[in-house]
């Protein structure tokens, strides 16, 4: 069973009136045979049959008004019955033409389009249309150029709290700067409508102090660190000298860590006494030719200190290759006890995160540790004027039981001299 629904006749109409059926129930029809004539408000149209078969049922009679897409008739073509047709809406009587001028011609049912398909409905539009041509003196909203708005946003300044000093109360960049530097200028957040949410909060409710509870024992590197630091405190007489290396004239492409390592070698060359082991009981020391540099590394498991061996005979490229190995081992947690044994001097490059100068701790039996802080732009006096130069802050802690301050200064001077070279 096939159902034929009233098609959209291309006039954009919602309904059509059946003028007359050309077939009756029981007739056998061919494809394209005229089935019925419908009136589409400006024309009478013959609707051809889309199927061949026997007319099983007509759903409407002559004179009925049929909504577009509702079932017109059923065909028995031997195919199984389709799902039930959509419920048949009430048949309506034709609408009366509208009143006044339009009554003279039955325009109410005329959609009138020679081409195309036009949506037609009697839905009533409800609207208000306001004519508004008064000049409003000002809505009170702050006025600022887009660039100034963006600038204020970046500083967290609320424009609605400012008075503009520009033309017509325009807020200027200077107004924003002024507001940013004054206390309490940073506002709370604003919602879309521009109403500021409050920045001042109510005081918190009181809470009791924290009580002592169960302690967790130290494990791994942290436990080892306790041991070595305790030993250091009880034995070493540490003294720290601070200075800076000006790397303004560095050529491009310098490997920072490599250069620092090389500068330490320069320092050792100038003052070999810092590349040594000291026995505080025997009052004896062993100076080393070879520089085995311990690199303090901060890991998720704690502080570990792998050793870069024989740095004095390696060029920068080689140093970098060996540093990468250490880095790789550290990430892979494969640094062995052998890797950390018997350094002759230590480097703590702590400045990546924060920190300028430090008093790093000498771990016996070594007698020196160099700390390098974060590279920064400093304002430096140059020939009576000022310039901004990149500098590396340096901190050298040495064991004053066996080394003097003068030696330490010469060590540092040699480091700085080497560091300040362009390459």
């Amino acid at each position: 069973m096939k159902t034929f629904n009233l098609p959209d006749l291309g006039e954009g109409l919602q309904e059509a009136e059946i003028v007359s059926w050309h077939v009756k129930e029981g007739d056998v029809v061919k494809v394209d045979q005229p089935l019925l004539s419908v009136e589409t408000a400006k024309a009478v149209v013959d609707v051809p049959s889309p199927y061949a078969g026997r007319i099983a049922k007509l759903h409407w009679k002559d004179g009925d008004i049929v909504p577009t897409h509702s079932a017109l008739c059923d065909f028995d073509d031997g195919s199984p019955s389709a799902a039930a047709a959509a419920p048949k809406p009430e048949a309506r009587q034709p609408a009366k033409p509208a009143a006044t001028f339009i009554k003279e011609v039955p325009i109410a049912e005329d959609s009138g389009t020679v081409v195309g398909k036009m949506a037609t409905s009697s839905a009533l539009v409800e609207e208000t249309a306001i004519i508004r041509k008064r000049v409003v003196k000002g809505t009170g909203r702050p006025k600022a150029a887009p660039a100034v708005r963006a600038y204020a946003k970046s500083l967290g300044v609320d424009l609605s709290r400012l008075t503009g000093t520009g033309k017509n109360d325009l807020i200027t960049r200077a107004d924003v700067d002024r507001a940013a530097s004054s206390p309490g200028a940073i506002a709370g957040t604003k919602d879309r409508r521009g109403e500021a949410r409050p920045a001042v909060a109510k005081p918190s409710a009181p809470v009791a102090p924290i009580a002592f509870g169960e302690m967790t024992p130290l494990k791994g590197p942290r436990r080892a660190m306790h041991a070595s630091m305790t030993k250091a405190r009880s034995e070493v007489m540490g003294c720290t000298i601070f200075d800076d290396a000006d790397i303004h004239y560095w050529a491009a492409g310098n490997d920072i860590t490599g250069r620092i390592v090389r500068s330490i070698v320069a320092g050792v060359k100038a003052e070999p006494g810092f590349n040594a082991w000291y026995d505080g009981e025997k009052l004896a020391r062993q100076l080393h030719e070879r520089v085995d540099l311990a690199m303090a590394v901060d890991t998720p498991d704690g502080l570990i200190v792998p050793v870069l061996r024989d740095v004095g005979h390696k060029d920068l490229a080689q140093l970098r290759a060996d540093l990468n190995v250490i880095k790789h081992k550290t990430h892979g947690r494969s640094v062995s006890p052998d890797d950390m044994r018997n350094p002759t001097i230590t480097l703590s490059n702590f400045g990546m995160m924060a920190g300028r100068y430090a008093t790093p701790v000498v771990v016996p039996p070594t007698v020196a540790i160099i700390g390098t802080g974060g590279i920064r732009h400093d304002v430096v006096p140059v020939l009576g004027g000022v310039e901004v130069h990149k500098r590396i802050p340096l901190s050298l802690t040495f064991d004053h039981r066996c080394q003097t301050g003068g030696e330490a200064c010469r060590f540092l001077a040699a480091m700085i001299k080497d560091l300040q070279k362009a390459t």
Partner: protein
Amino acid sequence: MNNLAAKFEIPYFQFLDPDGKPAKAMPRIAGDVAELVRMYETMSFVRVFDTKAIALQRTGQLGTYASCLGHEAVHVAIGAAMRREDAFFPMYREYGAQFMRGVHPHEVLLFWGGDERGNCFKDAPAHDFAWCVPIATQFHHAAGAATAFKYRKQPRCAVTVIGDGGTSQGDFYESLNCAGAWQLPVVFVVCNNKWAISVPLSAQTSCETLAQKAIGGGIRGEQVDGNDIVAMRDAMDRALERGRQGQGATLIEAMTYRLSDHTTADDARRYRDSAEVEDAKGKEPLIRIRNYLTAIGAWDAKREEKLLADCAARVDAEVAIYKAAGKPPVESMFDHMFANLPEKLVRQREECLEGSTHHQGGSH
């Protein structure tokens, strides 16, 4: 003393009367019976197609469509007479001419079905123009093509069609004048079907014939019974020959009648007399050629039955192709704008693709 600055004559041609009775002297084409049969078969095919296209529109499967009912002889004669290397500049109704030149019926359906792919003309000559909605602009195009043919010394003609209404347009007059001044190898066919939507010929012009507008352009004009395929074909043959021989342009006014509405969204009963339509039906082109061919033993009822069945099958096959075409890809709006798409349009194309709700079946 009366002097005459100019005088003109407009010849008229008819060889088959409305019942198919032949004139005493028949033109050359009448000797080629196989060709007459071929043209008749195409006329029938066009009618079957046209009826189907209207049915498709009435069942919501095609947009607004311009029927060619009653114009079959005019259109088929044009297409049959033309050579492939000639160029055709249609209005929007001449399917008979286009089918003869290799345009597929499904391409016609695609065009009226709202799909530019109908203009691709896979097997028709690539130099034929697409359907032209702005009235009379196609006359300009035809004159330009004819100029190029003449410049290159090629024995090719441009052929274009216009309705009676279109002959009021400025573009029409400008084109005739240019064709006359430059002696162009162009054939202007005025398909006078008596109606421009609801405006009858009598309100369109006070000229006794539309053919005489050719005089205003300085070219030859003749009037033909457009429902007589023999006369129409003969007129086309002669006009094309003139063009190829360098004798210039011809305007053929083909007298016929628009048996259909202007388009499927028009209802001619609002403004036309049904008696006039009935009268015209009696003079329609298929009757007389069928009668003539039957009389000379070249046609019979059995062949007619087979022909109609073949036509129906072919039309159904074309409709199937049309229905399977789906919706063109959304980005095709942009892809044929320029040889190299400017940056702004590249961006818009991407934006459009991102925001498109394109899915199979073409919903809106």
